[in-house]
């Protein structure tokens, strides 16, 4: 079908630096739900924008494999092998690795972290709120997931800041504020065998080696110890597998929760009536958090690769084709969510795809993220009477992560606290 609308170019990171092109996704869902996009390097991808189609791709890992990469970036076979984590695997290999750590992230396990998360949150807020004006990203949203990650890994709190800067260099590898090695603008050939083609991975690998050496002497039940213990099939991970797993946890474990917290606050600033409702009744938060997550859609897409000729949304796909499943679009699909552009903190059911519903790859940190988001607002809202922007937000240059780098805010503190 001819594209009659003025569509934003979703192949470009710069498009998303200006804002999520919701109008384009809405048009695509309605008129061309599975659409072909050409990239500058001559390759291209299918964009899947409807909720139902996205679930089909998510579920069907035999037809839509993760093993050829999960990001747009095309990797040579040796790169792919050197950088493979469980995210670039299908079952049953994926299942074997995931089982090593998933017990630390279940709904029940995560409940035990609530007190720690609350202590960390209160510490962060008590330090920053008296200044009345601050960058909510840097001072609050970045701090909590980072410190919690450190606790899960059993590393000193002091290492957290460094770990997160390294994580940002990798995930933010398309944004010049986070890295000197912008992956689509500079020559990163030297780092092609490293996670995210990033020099930060060299340092993280060294850190992981040191951590493994020390932890092997005294294995416990923490995340690192589990990665160093054999799988249920009795196979220990190789050094490279361990290091890639470690880097994945550092990369995935902080920025997505950070940005989800930021988008939540932005949504509440934009919808003051919702903010007031929550302040008056914090028990609405668990349901509200699901709406925060839908609204934010922090990971905007993942990529799959077609393994055999397949049909989707009336389009014919061939083996080898890249497919991007756009969570940010499916989460606003009119056929799934009534009034999707209405921010409704009581929305229920709210089967958003932010965590990758119906996929073996369902976000392992989903319960942790939910809990951190709930606790942040349980502690923040009663402490403030008002919160307002104190300057423009700055978005991450990425069509992959819906990120906000800076969000200056001004608060008026509540009197009773």
């Amino acid at each position: 079908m001819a594209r009659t609308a003025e569509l934003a170019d979703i192949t470009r990171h710069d498009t998303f630096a200006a804002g999520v092109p919701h109008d384009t996704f809405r048009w695509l869902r309605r008129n061309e739900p599975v659409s072909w996009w050409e990239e500058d390097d001559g390759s291209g991808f299918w964009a899947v924008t409807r909720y139902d189609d996205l679930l089909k791709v998510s579920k069907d890992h035999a037809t839509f494999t993760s093993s050829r990469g999960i990001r747009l970036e095309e990797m040579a076979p040796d790169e792919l092998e050197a950088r493979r984590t469980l995210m670039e695997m299908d079952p049953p290999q994926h299942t074997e690795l995931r089982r090593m750590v998933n017990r630390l992230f279940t709904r029940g396990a995560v409940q035990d972290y609530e007190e720690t998360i609350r202590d960390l949150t209160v510490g962060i807020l008590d330090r920053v709120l008296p200044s009345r004006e601050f960058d909510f990203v840097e001072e609050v949203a970045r701090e909590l997931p980072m410190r919690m990650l450190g606790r899960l890994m059993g590393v000193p709190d002091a290492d957290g800041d460094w770990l997160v800067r390294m994580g940002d260099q990798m995930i933010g590898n398309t944004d010049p504020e986070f890295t000197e090695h912008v992956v689509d603008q500079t020559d990163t050939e030297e780092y092609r065998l490293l996670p995210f083609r990033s020099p930060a991975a060299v340092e993280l690998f060294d850190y992981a080696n040191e951590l493994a050496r020390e932890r092997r002497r005294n294995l416990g039940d923490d995340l690192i110890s589990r990665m160093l213990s054999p799988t249920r099939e009795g196979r220990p991970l190789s050094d490279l597998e361990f290091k890639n797993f470690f880097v994945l946890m550092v990369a995935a474990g902080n920025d997505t929760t950070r940005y989800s917290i930021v988008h939540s606050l932005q949504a509440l600033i934009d919808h003051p009536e919702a903010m007031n409702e929550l302040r008056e009744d914090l028990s609405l938060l668990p349901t509200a958090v699901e709406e925060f997550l839908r609204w934010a859609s922090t990971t905007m897409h993942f990529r799959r690769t077609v393994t055999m000729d397949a049909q989707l949304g009336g389009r014919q796909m061939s083996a080898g084709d890249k497919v991007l499943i756009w969570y940010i679009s499916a989460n606003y699909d009119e056929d799934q969510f009534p009034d999707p552009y209405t921010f409704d903190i009581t929305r229920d059911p709210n089967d958003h795809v932010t965590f990758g519903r119906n996929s073996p790859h369902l976000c392992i940190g989903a319960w942790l993220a939910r809990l951190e988001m709930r606790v942040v607002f349980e502690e923040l809202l009663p402490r403030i009477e008002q919160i307002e922007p104190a300057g423009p937000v700055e978005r991450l240059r990425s069509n992959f992560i819906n990120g906000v780098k800076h969000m200056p805010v001004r608060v008026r503190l509540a009197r009773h606290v």
Partner: protein
Amino acid sequence: MRVVVDYDLCEGNAVCEAISGEIFQVDEDDQVRLLLPEPGPEWQTAVEEAVRRCPKQALSVED
């Protein structure tokens, strides 16, 4: 109708329990236990919804 759980996949998200606590119960160990392993036809809608909405696709039905 027989409900089948793939325990390699189940991570205790408890979506099924919210849909039908009569059939599904998520235990302390975060794995689902079937209170009614072979529910009658009156449960068909609930079971189908649980199968469809399980975030890990850990549930299925055998006739």
